């Protein structure tokens, strides 16, 4: 086996800048650079960027496709304030409708100003039924009613929107556990999917955020939003790896069609440039 020369300082520095700038974080950057040095020596045919892309892609957990025979399939959407939950639900519902299936959006955010108006407006725009209730209603009961309604209407999906919350708000985190349990009472096995929506501009707080949410409810998938900006969303690597959570979708705009199925290679290529 012929070893090539080691990677030059300039390229190493460039690689480090790319990785850090993407929000990959200090620790994972060190890990990737270590592998990069080794790969570079063994692999003189590939451009250094391709080597970097390969290493990053390997860090992502395998995305097995999700399907549910449950009818309705219940999806619960959670995340911190302003991450893009409500807009993601609108976009997901649009995609479901495009695929020829039926869906109900349930607004269990009974807390934030005009939250139900926001989801109701989306329902109106997209011609999708929405279940809301007045501000201050217990989110568990709205969740219960939304699932029951979807069952009555024999719909394929029901997606539950929840209020944004920071993991430091213990009371609100407990409330989330309660909403999760109530969903299971409304229908056995529900929710069949729990999407954690992550703002693509988030830094190193992504991992502790996800870890905290996982303590209260079993998150099953990740959605990363706002990747139409200049943020690269690199903080999801640590989170996806540590918690073995698949990244399901990414948000690339504010419109009803601006949600795409996550593709690891494309995501990583956008980081490396």
């Amino acid at each position, binding site marked *: 086996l012929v070893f090539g020369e080691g990677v030059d300082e300039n390229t190493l520095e460039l690689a480090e800048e790319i990785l850090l700038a993407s*929000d990959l974080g200090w620790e994972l950057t060190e890990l990737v650079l270590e592998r990069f040095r080794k790969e570079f020596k063994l692999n003189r045919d590939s451009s250094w960027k391709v080597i970097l892309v390969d290493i990053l892609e390997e860090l992502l957990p395998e995305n097995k496709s999700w399907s549910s025979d449950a009818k309705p399939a219940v999806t619960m959407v959670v995340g911190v304030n302003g991450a*893009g939950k409500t807009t993601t639900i609108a976009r997901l519902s649009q995609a479901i409708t495009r695929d020829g299936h039926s869906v109900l959006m349930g607004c269990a955010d009974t807390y*934030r100003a005009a939250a139900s108006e*926001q989801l109701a407006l989306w329902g109106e725009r997209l011609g999708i039924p929405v279940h809301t209730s007045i501000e201050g209603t217990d989110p568990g009961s709205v969740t219960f009613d939304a699932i029951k309604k979807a069952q009555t209407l024999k719909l394929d999906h029901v997606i539950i929107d929840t209020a944004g919350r920071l993991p430091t708000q213990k009371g609100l985190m407990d409330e989330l556990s309660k909403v999760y349990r109530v969903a299971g009472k409304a229908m056995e096995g529900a929710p069949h999917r729990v999407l954690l929506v992550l703002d693509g*501009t*988030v830094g190193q*707080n992504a991992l502790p955020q996800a870890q905290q949410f996982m303590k209260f409810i079993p998150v099953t998938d990740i959605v990363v939003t706002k990747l139409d*900006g200049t943020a690269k969303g690199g903080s999801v690597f640590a989170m996806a790896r540590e918690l073995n959570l698949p990244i399901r979708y990414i948000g690339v705009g*504010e419109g009803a069609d601006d949600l795409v199925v996550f593709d690891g290679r494309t995501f990583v290529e956008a980081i490396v440039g």
Partner: protein
Amino acid sequence: KLADRLGQTFKNLSGKGVLSESNISDAMREIRRALLEADVNFKVAKKFVAEVTEKATGERVLKSLSPGQQVVKIVNEQIVELLGSNAEKLELTGKPPHVILLLGLQGSGKTTTAARLAYLLQKKQNRRCMVVAADLQRPAAIDQLEVMAKKAGASFYCDRNEKDPAEVTRAAIHKAGLAYNDVVIVDTAGRLHVDSDLMEELERVKAVAKPDESLLVLDGLSGQDAVNVALEFNEQIGFSGAVLTKMDGDSRGGAALSFRAVTGKPIKFVGIGESVTGLEEFDPSRMAGRILG
């Protein structure tokens, strides 16, 4: 904690002597790591570490502090100085109504800040505030601000039939003058600095508003991209300061240092909760402690 890690780095140094360049470079590696983990932009961290290295090299090792504690002290002082050791207030001078324009990325906390700021100014400076719903694109944005304005006890202006936010702004300021509101706070739609149409729209809103203060509302959870946002908004639109939101979470808030380092503008307020009372004035020394972890 950084102090503990530096303690490890320096455990061979006794209470005598001077901090040498090699002691410092090990310490600086730890400092750089702590800053990156706190979401300080990597270019800002690099420059910062160079400046601290200069300050720390040759310093007499004080008997009262361990060398690790001493370096932490220097780093802390440097961060406080960078963040603006005197917290800067709002500049509302000249003839009322004084206009404050809020701008920033989607979901950063502008609408909530508009109401919180009105509440704070009313309470602390006895101002009569009007909040203006100039976000005409987000579903139910007007409703959201209306509810929050009511909670804040501020007057509210909107025009549900108008399509141009600059026109809403112009009409609101005119009305505020007639109604003796001395502060007008304009909430705008979230936008990306790479969306040229929306940035051009913001320029027009600002031209009409002629604000005394333009505040970038920045999410406290932001990572490396905060510098791009700060630079681009400052270059394309121009602002006089920032509001750092969602700091009631456990994000280290390094975006504050990045923002200040690349724009030189002051952070004036910090969002610490969703209710109308959830806004306080920026405290540089508290922020420094948080960034250092």
